[in-house]
């Protein structure tokens, strides 16, 4: 099996750094502390003062969660069509090409098989750096196939979400990806293997209102933005400011929609234990 796997590309590590401001020092947006960048990287891109979690590339999550950072990738060749021939200030096809060039990926999900403490899992990980992790037909299809692979092999399913929601440029078809993925999760229920949904900053709108909310267990990193409606829209609708901590992981947990908040350094251990409890 091992020869099927390939190491996450070393070249993509620079992606992590790109999301952190250039230079030797950076400021934590949560607590304002000035942090030495080397220190930040050593702490898996989390603030050691307040536990704020900075962005973490999918390649880094792969190294963090999967045995030896190995995985067998599936469906990497799926590429978005342009069903609406959508154009705002830019053509959708140009946006896609730009995002592909920037990330080296075809769309906003990496998916396949991997092992967590020796147990095989089917996984999908969303990549925020690809058009905000937005869900169009390719994201929906790759998530759907990940669910189907988990169903077929009766193995645990791990989906790590990071997305602003559905991809407007695919109109109604992006909305329908919510139905596609959620309907397949109903099928996955039949095999009685655990689906662990991991929410990272941010997970909102169409993704939050479909598979991200349907885990047997739902865990989130601290201080992530989680919710359905966008904060600007809510502010406009109610004509008032939003309370502090609104739509955070802690808010979600307080209101009963999250099983657990887990620090990045403990993520693999907790996921692994959960799999073992439910397998």
């Amino acid at each position: 099996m091992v020869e099927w796997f390939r190491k996450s590309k070393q070249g993509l590590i620079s992606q992590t750094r790109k999301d952190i401001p250039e230079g030797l020092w950076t400021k934590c947006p949560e607590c304002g502390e000035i942090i030495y960048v080397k220190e930040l990287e050593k702490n898996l891109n989390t603030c050691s003062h307040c536990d704020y979690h900075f962005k973490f590339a999918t390649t880094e999550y792969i190294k963090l969660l999967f045995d030896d950072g190995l995985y067998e990738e599936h469906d990497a060749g799926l590429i978005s069509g342009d069903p609406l021939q959508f154009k705002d200030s830019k053509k959708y096809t140009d946006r896609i090409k730009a995002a592909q060039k920037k990330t080296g990926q075809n769309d906003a999900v990496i998916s396949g098989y991997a092992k967590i403490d020796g147990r095989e899992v089917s996984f999908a990980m969303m990549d925020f750096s690809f058009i905000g992790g937005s869900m169009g037909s390719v994201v929906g299809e790759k998530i759907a196939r990940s669910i189907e692979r988990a169903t077929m092999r009766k193995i645990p399913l791990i989906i790590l979400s990071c997305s602003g929601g559905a991809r407007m440029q695919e109109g109604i078809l992006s909305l329908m990806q919510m139905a596609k993925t959620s309907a397949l999760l109903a099928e996955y229920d039949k095999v009685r293997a655990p689906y662990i949904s991991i929410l990272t900053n941010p997970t909102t709108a169409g993704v939050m209102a479909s598979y991200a909310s349907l885990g047997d267990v739902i865990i989130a990193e601290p201080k992530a933005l989680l919710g359905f409606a966008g904060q600007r829209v809510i502010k406009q609708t109610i004509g008032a400011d939003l309370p502090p901590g609104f739509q955070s992981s802690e808010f979600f947990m307080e209101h009963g929609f999250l099983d657990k908040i887990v620090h990045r350094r403990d993520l693999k251990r907790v996921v692994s234990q959960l799999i073992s409890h439910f397998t």
Partner: protein
Amino acid sequence: MANGIVLDFEKPIVELEKRILEMREFASGGSVELNSEIESLERKLEKLTREIYSNLSRWQRVQLARHPKRPYTNDYIEHMTEGFIELHGDRGFADDKAVVCGPAMFHGRKVMIVGQQKARDTKSKLYRNFGMMHPEGYRKAMRMMKLAEKFSLPVLIFIDTPGAYPGIAAEERGQAEAIAFNIKEMARLRVPIIISIIGEGASGGALGIGVGDVILMMENSWYSVISPEGCAAILWRDAAMAPQAAEALKLTAPDLIELGVIDRILPEPPGGAHRDHKGAAEILAAAIDEHLMAIMEMTTDEMLSKRLDKFRNMGVYYHD
């Protein structure tokens, strides 16, 4: 249109109608000349109506979908069912008035109705929250669908919402979870579900009661991932660009047939459903009845596997 709001593109029709009405009053004396003049104007009116309505832009259709005289869920219930009994509440938190549910008789068959409810005057609009549901609305809808499942009643869904309500309390009570839960449960509900989009179908707010065996769409309604205003505000940074966003989103019934998302477009009475509620209801009822009969020929497992396939196959992508 007798009273109320007249959309810009409806004006020539309304003016011509007024002229015909005036002439009819004069003609009550029995002038042959006037009568033939009226007849010719009526032919002109018919032609004009056909012309205007066959060339509507997407934005004009959005406006028709929002027409304050448009038939709402309760109008369809009144015109196509008998013995409807409204049932309230989610048994957990509250009764969401933006959605109306309950059993009824439809063409001699027992059914469960679930529909988003808009209203026409300010007080009622507030009472119905403009057809924007809270989490307890989605949970109430699911409770009624489970009730339908228990008693083997087909579910008739009417979609008409500008979106799920974006507010603090809605987030506190789990708007995302409520919608996600419904989508998954509707995919496996063991009774037929017929979805009818009668006005606006905005985003997750619509899809939260929008999974079923057949999706019907009234000719002048819209269904998309976001409202034209919302899309314009994000992509053009200007809500006034909504007409352009409506074009870009391809959100009309003919668009959705082409994209393989809906099953059938239902033509509305001349000039739109708002001009003839009863006529619109008859057209929709006939279609619902036809599809319901076809679904009921299948076994439950066949029905569910077709329902899954329907959504499983939606999307456009290719392999490099």
